[in-house]
């Protein structure tokens, strides 16, 4: 499977990554190599195989809906890059 520079750019946009020209060129080459390698999975007929997303037989884990402790505001904001008035300041998102 070959991936094109345009596809790499599209995927980067989905992943919220800005690539420079060198990175785009490198990822086009390396992702093509890796995708060529993973194509070996197509040697296997999996038409009747159920997918596995979780290996241990634990299902529908519930807990009582009880009010517990939560982080105090100061602690929740201690790592904030831009704390302001007990909130995280971010760029304007509505006109």
């Amino acid at each position: 499977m070959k991936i094109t520079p345009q596809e790499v750019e599209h995927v980067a946009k989905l992943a919220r990554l800005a690539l420079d020209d060198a990175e785009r060129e490198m990822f086009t080459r390396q992702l093509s190599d890796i995708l060529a390698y993973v194509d070996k999975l197509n040697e296997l007929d999996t038409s009747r195989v159920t997918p596995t997303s979780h290996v241990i037989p634990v299902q529908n884990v519930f807990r009582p809906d009880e009010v517990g402790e939560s982080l105090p505001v100061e602690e929740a904001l201690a790592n904030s890059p831009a704390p302001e008035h007990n909130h995280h300041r971010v760029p304007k998102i509505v006109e």
Partner: protein
Amino acid sequence: MDLWELSLHEARELLHKGEISSRQLTEVFFQRIEAVEPRIHAFITLTKESALAEADQADDRRRREAAAPPLLGIPLAIKDLISTRGVKTTCGSRILHNYVPPYDATAMVKLRAQGAVFLGKTNMDEFAMGSSTETSHFGISRNPWDLQRVPGGSSGGSAACVAARQCSAALGSDTGGSIRQPAAFCGIVGLKPTYGRVSRYGLVAYASSLDQIGPMTREVRDTAILLEAISGHDPRDSTSAPFPVPPYESEMVRGAAGLRVGIPKEYFVAGMDREVEEAVRNSVETLEQLGMQVSEVSLPHTEYAVATYYLLATAEASSNLARYDGVKYGLRGGGDGDLPTMYMQTRSAGFGIEVKRRIMLGTYALSAGYYDAYYLKAQKVRTLIKEDFDQVFQTVDVIATPTAPMAAFKLGEKIGDPLQMYLSDIFTIPVNLAGLPGLVLPCGFTAAGLPVGLQLIGRPFEETVLLRAGYAFEQATEWHEKPAPV
């Protein structure tokens, strides 16, 4: 004998008898760290001040309490993606270079409850993505057996500091081999527990269906002690297993005669290092001499494991790492522009090249038009790989394999070729995909003096069986006794 030469359980005995104090032991480890750390660089953060305070508290508690917990006053090192309240947790990434968790991982809560002492946070591949610790934002770590070689990865700092005797033991994490491969490269013991055995709460997520925290130690007994301490159900991790924790240390000594050991023919492949293969084959003979019944078995889908892993792990990673957006913690870039620009600039400046590569691959595998061909296909092959193991475990109790196809490779040797780097995990990855426990322990050396590790794989939640086999092997051999020449 210097105190830093003590293994965890030896230190525990001397502390218990009152022959040494935790304060003494902790100070000695910091002296050792000062002596060797400039050459090894195993740590990202050292916490000397709080460690000495913890040691004093431990000594005080020992005077007051008759029954001391096994880890009281024991100095440990913690991989830097396990959340430590009040202590920087960077995941080896620029994007979290200043992140200080406001809470402890459950594994940390359990260790603190026993009164363990924490020396610092260890170096690692960025977000655990790598097999050599070369992708860390904070610089490389070196292998204590040969400073020109990698310690393995991603838990390379934890492996190196145990091998260089800079702590009693360490915690690592393992998504595709990140405890076991560095343990093998550094000549120590490492265990990836069954998926669900140890809570993942507070373990910064890479691939949530594969990640596990586990012990990295000098000896098998030390691994049993640490595993017992950190295991158990946790309401804060819905994937943690609601099964009781066996007394691993006392079960471990029950003997291994009669255990049935399978040797999968697919794990002795062309291109494998001959000295590694020879050391592993000799170890299998030792297992036989110890009364275990050895037979050849087959895991036919082994060759598909790396491809499966690099689709599933990267898909999960692309989703998990979406949280690094510069809003609530960590690095923020481009705060003056609009929101998408801030996301882009934060992530582009904050992530290193291997993390970007895996986010890209995972995003591609999950994107419209490719989901069925890649992600769903890989989930189906995961089923086939798991069924291989289910089948084999009907006739054997343990599977014995090499840990990696080679001993520690040279710094810089594979970093330019991602696919070659990925293929070094070929023998550890299937174990994560199937959710099984895997124990690695020293089993020989190459002619150049590099350690080789034997991997023992067990049924889900049968860590006890692995520890019994591993302990019997360790008792019969001397590989674990040779110190690294650092």
